[in-house]
């Protein structure tokens, strides 16, 4: 299996070579053998000893191609696929499909304190459309692409959650 960790460039390989049935595993990671002793797996928290060092990982999300874990206090996104290298090449070839997306999402939860533009306005990537207030700070939601504002989904005073749609840009 191939793995890619969010902020790292390298592709890692990993497989389980041997399992002795009492929680002891031999795994091969990037060509090197490691011993794993599982301590427990409960409520999505996996505790194990990797080569004589204790590790704890909380599984935050698990999908067929993505795993999000909390390890050493940091959130790690891992992409996995038996042939990840090919998958990544393909997606790069396709060229950022997400840029074609119309929906402008709020990256933080907050209260809408002002709306800077109106439906029909032309915007460039990075133009501030809405200002949110959270924790006594004002944060602008900026357009993710160039285009025309087709719809604004919020009004002043509304509260929005993370990833709520605040506007549509065409």
């Amino acid at each position, binding site marked *: *299996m191939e*793995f890619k*960790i*969010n*902020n*790292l460039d*390298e592709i*890692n390989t*990993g*497989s*389980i070579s041997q*399992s002795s*049935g*009492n*929680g002891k*595993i031999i*795994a091969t*990671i*990037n060509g090197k053998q*490691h011993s*794993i*002793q*599982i*301590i*427990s*797996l*409960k409520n999505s928290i*996996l*505790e*194990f000893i*990797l080569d004589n*060092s204790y*590790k704890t*990982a*909380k*599984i935050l999300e*698990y999908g067929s191609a993505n*795993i999000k*874990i*909390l*390890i*050493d*206090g*940091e959130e*790690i996104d*891992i992409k*996995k696929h038996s042939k990840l290298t090919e998958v990544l090449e393909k997606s790069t070839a396709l060229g950022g499909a997400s840029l074609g997306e119309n929906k402008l999402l709020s*990256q*933080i*939860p*907050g*209260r809408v304190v002002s709306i800077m533009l109106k439906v029909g306005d032309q915007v460039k990537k990075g133009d501030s459309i809405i200002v949110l207030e*959270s*924790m*006594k*700070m004002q*944060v602008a939601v900026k357009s993710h692409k160039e285009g025309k504002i087709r719809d604004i989904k919020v009004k002043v005073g509304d509260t929005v959650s*993370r990833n709520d749609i605040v506007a549509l840009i065409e």
Partner: protein
Amino acid sequence: MGKLISSIMIANRGEIALRVIRACKELQIKSIALYSDEDLKSKHVKSADEAYYIGPAAPTKSYLNIDKIIEIAESAGAEAVHPGYGFLSENETFAAKCEEKGIIFIGPTSEAMALTGDKMKCKEIMKKAEVPTIPGSDDILEEVDKAVEIAEEAGYPVLLKSAFGGGGRGIRFADNEKQLREEFEMASAESRAAFGKSGLYVEKFLKGIRHIEFQLARDSNGNGVHLFERECSVQRRHQKLIEFSPSSVVDKKTRSKIGDIAVRAAESVDYLNAGTAEFLRDEKGNFYFIEVNSRLQVEHPVTELITGIDLVKLQIKIACGDEIPFKQSDLNFNGSAVECRINAEDPFHDFVPSNGYVPDCNLPYGPGVRVDTYLYPGCNVSGYYDSLVAKLITWGADFDEARIRMSNALDEFMIEGIHTTIPLYRTIMKEKNFIKGNISTDYLEKYDLINLMKTQSKEKSLKTSDASIAAALVYSEYLKGQNSPSNSSKELSLSNWVQTGNIKNGI
């Protein structure tokens, strides 16, 4: 000790409310908390002896609602009010209302507060008391031409500040006349919108400055002392991030000299209770008075750790009319202390606020470690209020011991569900200029700390990548076993033997 009061209402929330509640418990005074709709599950509600509902989440409808707070204080029979910091802590109207109703306000008198709150008036008094101040305007400037004149006299670059601002907000920089005229116009409009009046003044911009402040205490019998300095130069956009004591540039002689000036400053406004005199120090070692903060400050634990004095209990005793139970000469400077303000902001993404539910958290502890926080597993970090969720303070026999303990405690501090400034502090604690005490208010930009943090984060991911892959492998295999039709599956299944490692109720 004079007669103590029997109850205190805390007109605040979060960690500072908890700090005051602890002091009340130690003095066997009944603590009375307030909570907005947002704070029903907050820790200060759980810890106080009594808790009263104050109103909707928005601060103006709850923790800033003077009439409602006074009303509850009276009906609950609170003999005193502690305002904490922020909210109404430097609101002279609130202090005056308390005085009027015969409720002890734990802080300075409304009169002294009015003086320290008006920065220009305060500066004038300081000049008379021969306290050094920064070159610049002596008064609030109504016209831009006057500002330009003064800027020329003091020399560019200059800073344009609002007399009503505070906490570093709204400070503008001007390098020449054109810039000054532009900024003056914008700042003036902004100030009028917010405070109904302009109230701008000009100050010489000092290069490579440090922000150093002195903790003060003064009782109603006129006894005043300073409790040494705090070095607060590690800031981001004029907001303090890290405070420590002693400062690496304050020797015994300077400490005594500037400390005396601070006490004189407090005397000149007949200041009562705990407060802080803030100074700027330029590269040549000159100190300039900037303002008196007429409240308990966020960073007061730093002073508590190096003096052994409980400042909140001292505040309460002074408010009850007690004399300060020690003299300047009784105070010993003991070791070194560092504080990091843990804010719910994402340092990897321009410090955007990051509030929400905290499913789990793990407070660091051990020798020399203190945490002041309202976090607990299952708590909620509200977007309605300040982003400060915890203060981590460490003590050491010297700066290095305190710093290393801070570094380890930061590693131990786990807060799930929100982003915090912890990764930035981890980087700073091991950064060579910080280690040498080579800092100024532009430290973060000067040494590009944000990028350093990002690089180190990558390195850390690389270091833990084996463990991450191992976890992903094991969990995938476990699920495979779970999903396979039955035990007869020949695939590697972990679902049975992960049980073996589970906790057993062994004897």
